[in-house]
């Protein structure tokens, strides 16, 4: 695993060397140095993330096939690896249709904003012992705050379509998302109490000896279920697969906008699974024979498998059952979790390295 550290350090020093050489060659001012470094970090992160995104979509489709006892994508490319790229190209070359009386500005801008709020938390997540973009002290709170922008954008998206049924779908979706912000935030309090900080990096450091899932399983379950609902995945995909009301708030968005919205959904999935591993499954902590980043990514993808598994198994809930479930079952569960954590903390604290 130290070979991985060495490799990363070497590559990074090579890049810094090139940047230095360019700066000295072109005589660029000094205040431009820091932003350039950060920009290069962002570009590398986005490139690696896009690869992983295609991998996630491929994984989901293949897994769906497995659970259904059938073969999934196999034709384009060997084992169907190029299928997603083909789908992306198809989405891009389609015609972009905006309804007649729809709000043009909003219609064009909302998919971009949705993608933006899905991708922004990537900056705060630590991928390894020294691999992160920024290290704020309140990164967890910031991520939760960004996630709560989603219901507003969804409502705007439904409004901007000039379609009765999209509006109804947007109302349902917005109310669903808002309702589940509360258990999401409440279930995280237990982790914060145990590790003593809102910094994602320190939370992972605190799990060197014991993973938090063993200390608060209730919190894990509450966070898991709330995040399925935030993502609008089955079994809670009432706005998405509303077969009685066309297709919900995403109806009027075609071609690349739909591609962006779908991509945003998968990015949000990635971010949620990353949060889950960091908060409960110990982040990058793992045995020494593999580099820590590999453990992080492995746990993340196993969680994605779990999400697909849950999607396959349960039927769709009705909207009122869903809301009742959130307010009457998950919120008390989250509060119970907090109470239990308070009671259990003194016994567990010695084991947590702070």
């Amino acid at each position, binding site marked *: 695993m130290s070979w991985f550290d060495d490799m990363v350090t070497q590559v990074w020093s090579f890049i810094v060397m090139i940047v230095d050489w360019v700066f000295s060659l072109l005589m660029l001012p000094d205040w431009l140095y820091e932003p350039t470094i950060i920009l290069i970090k962002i570009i590398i992160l986005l490139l690696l993330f896009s690869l992983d995104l295609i991998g996630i979509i491929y994984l989901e489709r293949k897994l769906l096939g*497995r*659970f259904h006892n059938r073969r999934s994508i196999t034709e384009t490319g060997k084992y169907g690896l190029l299928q997603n790229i083909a789908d992306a190209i198809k989405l891009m070359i389609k015609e972009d249709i905006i309804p007649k009386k729809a709000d043009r500005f909003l219609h064009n801008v909302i998919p971009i904003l949705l993608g933006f709020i899905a991708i922004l938390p990537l900056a705060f997540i630590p991928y390894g012992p020294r691999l992160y973009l920024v290290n704020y002290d309140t990164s967890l709170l910031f991520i939760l705050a960004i996630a709560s922008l989603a219901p507003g954008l969804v409502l705007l998206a439904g409004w901007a379509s000039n379609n009765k049924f999209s509006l109804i779908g947007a109302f349902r979706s917005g109310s669903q998302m808002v309702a589940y912000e509360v258990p999401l935030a409440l279930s995280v309090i237990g982790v914060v109490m145990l590790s003593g900080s809102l910094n994602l990096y320190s939370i992972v450091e605190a799990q060197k000896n014991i993973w938090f899932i063993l200390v608060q399983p209730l919190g894990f379950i509450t966070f898991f279920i709330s995040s399925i609902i935030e993502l609008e995945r089955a079994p809670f995909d009432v706005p998405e697969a509303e077969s009685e009301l066309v297709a919900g708030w995403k109806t009027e968005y075609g071609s690349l906008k739909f591609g962006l919205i779908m991509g945003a959904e998968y990015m949000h999935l990635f971010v949620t699974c990353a949060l889950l591993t960091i908060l409960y499954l110990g982040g990058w902590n793992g045995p020494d024979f593999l580099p820590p980043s590999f453990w992080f990514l492995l746990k993340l993808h196993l969680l994605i498998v779990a999400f697909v*598994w849950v999607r396959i*198994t349960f039927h769709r809930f009705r909207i009122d059952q869903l809301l009742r479930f959130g307010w009457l*079952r998950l919120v008390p569960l989250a509060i119970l979790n907090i109470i239990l954590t308070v009671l259990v903390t003194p016994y567990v604290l010695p084991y947590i390295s702070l």
Partner: protein
Amino acid sequence: MVSLSKVIRPLKVTFSYLFKRPFTVMYPKETLQPAERYRGIIQNDINRCIGCGACVLACPNQTLELMAREIDVDLDFTNPKSRMRMRPALDLGRCLYCGLCVEACPTRSLTLSKEYSVISMNRVDMLYTPEELAREKRLPVKERIRRFMGYYLLPKAFGGKYEKELMKLTEEYRAVVSKYGKKEITKEERDRLLSELEEKMFEVIREFGVEGI
């Protein structure tokens, strides 16, 4: 409260499918063998067939029609007495694959093969002359249309206003053939009239959209 077993049990069932072999048959790379009795495309053994016409009567959909063979070029096929020298032709686009014609055949010359792949890009490819039905050969499109002129299967293959026009031309064609059969006109006269009618029919079919003629 949600009972836990009601959540765990379905998850266990779905999980077990991760380790089972998929049930798919990757057609067209792998194909399934149809059963012994599979009712596929019709085949006729032209040497056993006696041209009785029982199959034509039995068909629920008017798919079959007796047609003069290639060797009987000058046959007057409008004369009911020449039926015994004609053999069945069929329109696969109208066939139901029900098998009633096979049961009606007294010499067991009609059979249903096991092919099931019927693909064509135009309607005329689905018309089979008696020799094609015996799997002897496959004619090019123009030849095949020429062979079918004067028989009712050709207009019925098209439908709509094309059917009406082609039906009129078919009736005229048949009238000319019958006149030749009763020796009212000479062979050259017949050939001239028939080629005029053929041109008109080709015109209509080209207007319909069949290419290559």
